[in-house]
């Protein structure tokens, strides 16, 4: 018996999504409540059945305020925030509480509502000096431009490959009824859109937006009481940057080089799950921009550095390819409500692994899925799911 076929201890029994996009006048908490109700209905549970909850958001200080709409049952509700890896931390905390035997059924909820345009903040809150922001260097998009430009130099990745990644995202969005961007775009349209941060054009980037996602987790021993199609959360690992990593929001970097936090999170997640990258049949990767998807393919071990040109040109990462990546259109087609984004990834993995993805269903229902998050100032999370 392969390692990943052994019994897990945490199961996902319900998922819910409030589609990501723009919803003037609708609050993040209201979207969160809708996602939570959908996840509960999917699991055949009512809110009073939930023992505990974990909520994540960037814009909403206390996602637990959602109980005003779901019902004030007095449950323990912990709020977490960990940048773009918020959902990974929320899932990890929920899994730990179940493994410790503290609780049996939990809701993990992510919700956010951002204004348009690139994220900004107070640089000093990210251990950066004020001048770094004044000089326009406190900007995630420019870091990603610099990182992929060096990666292209080192590994021969082409701008055409970046355009292919973005075109695939919009094509997947076009067949995903809940996607934010549902219009397919050609590689030419993507390449000729405005150059924001070379080599990344406007249509290669995701946009901050609004939305919510929820996941019901439980002790795997009782999962089949609630669903015939449990998906097991085999591992979820978060990491921060080490000295020597080249990371977003850093005025300087060391000469000595160490792997990005995604690499370390992936290694630890594979080890904890007892499976390897060769077992992964579907992946959801942090595609803040097309370059990130390319680099993250290698950082999580799904290919070697430099193999992406050939793999992507051959369609390997499309829905019908040998290794489908971001089958729902990823961040590029869905946008990024930070607190919810990683739970959208889990929602998509579970939907695909249950064979319920409709027009975008991967033909051979995948049994091993990986989700990866990365963001400022150098945080990463990797989750591995199996059926």
């Amino acid at each position, binding site marked *: 018996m392969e390692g990943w076929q052994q019994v897990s201890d945490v199961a996902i029994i319900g998922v819910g999504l409030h589609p990501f996009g723009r919803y003037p006048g609708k609050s993040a908490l209201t979207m969160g409540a809708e996602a939570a109700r959908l996840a509960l209905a999917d699991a055949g549970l009512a809110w009073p059945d939930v023992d505990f909850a974990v909520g994540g958001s960037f814009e909403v200080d206390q996602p637990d305020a959602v109980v005003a709409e779901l019902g004030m049952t007095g449950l323990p509700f912990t709020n977490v925030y960990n940048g773009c890896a918020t959902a990974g931390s929320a899932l990890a905390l929920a899994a730990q509480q179940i493994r410790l035997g503290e609780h049996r059924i939990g809701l993990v909820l992510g919700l956010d509502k951002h204004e348009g*345009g*690139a994220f*900004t903040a*107070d*640089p000093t809150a990210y251990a950066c*000096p*004020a*001048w*770094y*922001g*004044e*000089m*326009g*260097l*406190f*900007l995630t998009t*420019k870091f990603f*431009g*610099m*990182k992929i*430009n*060096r990666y292209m*130099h080192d590994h021969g990745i082409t701008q055409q490959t970046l355009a292919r990644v973005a075109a695939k995202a919009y094509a997947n969005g076009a067949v995903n009824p809940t996607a934010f961007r549902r219009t397919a775009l050609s590689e030419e349209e993507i390449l000729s859109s*405005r*150059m*924001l*941060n*070379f*080599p*990344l054009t406007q249509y290669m980037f995701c946009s901050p937006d609004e939305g919510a996602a929820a996941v019901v987790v439980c002790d795997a021993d009782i999962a089949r009481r609630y669903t015939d199609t449990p998906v097991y959360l085999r591992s979820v690992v978060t990491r921060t940057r080490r*000295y020597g990593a*080249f990371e977003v929001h*850093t*005025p*300087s*970097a*060391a*000469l000595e080089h160490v792997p990005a936090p995604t690499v370390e999170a992936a290694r630890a997640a594979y080890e904890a799950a007892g499976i390897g990258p060769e077992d992964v049949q579907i992946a959801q990767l942090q595609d803040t921009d097309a370059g990130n998807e390319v680099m993250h393919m290698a950082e999580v071990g799904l290919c070697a550095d430099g193999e992406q040109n050939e793999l992507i040109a051959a369609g390997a990462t499309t829905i019908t390819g040998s290794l489908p990546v971001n089958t729902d259109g990823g961040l590029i087609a869905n946008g990024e409500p930070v607190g919810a984004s990683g739970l959208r990834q889990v929602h998509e993995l579970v939907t695909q692994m249950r064979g319920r993805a409709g027009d975008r269903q991967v033909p051979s229902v995948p049994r091993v899925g990986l989700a990866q998050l990365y963001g400022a100032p150098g945080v990463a999370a990797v989750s591995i799911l199996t059926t």
Partner: protein
Amino acid sequence: MAGEPIAEGLFTWPSDQPRLIGGRCGECDAVSFPRRHGCPRCGAVAVTEELLGREGTLWTWTSQGFAPKEPFNGNVTVGAQHAPWFVGLVEIPGELRIEALLVGVTPETIEIGMPVHLVVVPWRVDDEGRETVTFAFAPGAAGQAAHDGGGVAAGV
């Protein structure tokens, strides 16, 4: 060139040969920038001032095609009317890599590996006419750049 530095303790100024002010750890010898109380490599609080080298090579770069939101506040050498401008990561041999604005480069001339050197450039003029300067890197070695300090246009 007139003007106050964008921050205290960031680079030596006024100076014909400005240097960035970093730190060196008394425990592990790591060079860091900007200078902080603790060492980012080992955490020791034994960091002393270290003036960084003026010359380096361009490790990577990107263009900046839009004016960032606040707290960005440049309006002379870069800014909305100058977009795109260029930024990069400059490797100072034996020390570290530094994120910085790049001046005097164009889409045709900029390339990974090119030699660059530290310059001080005009950054903004406020409503009352007060001038602020900041650091950037320009092509070539430190000795050969006669235009240093002249407010080099940021490129196309």
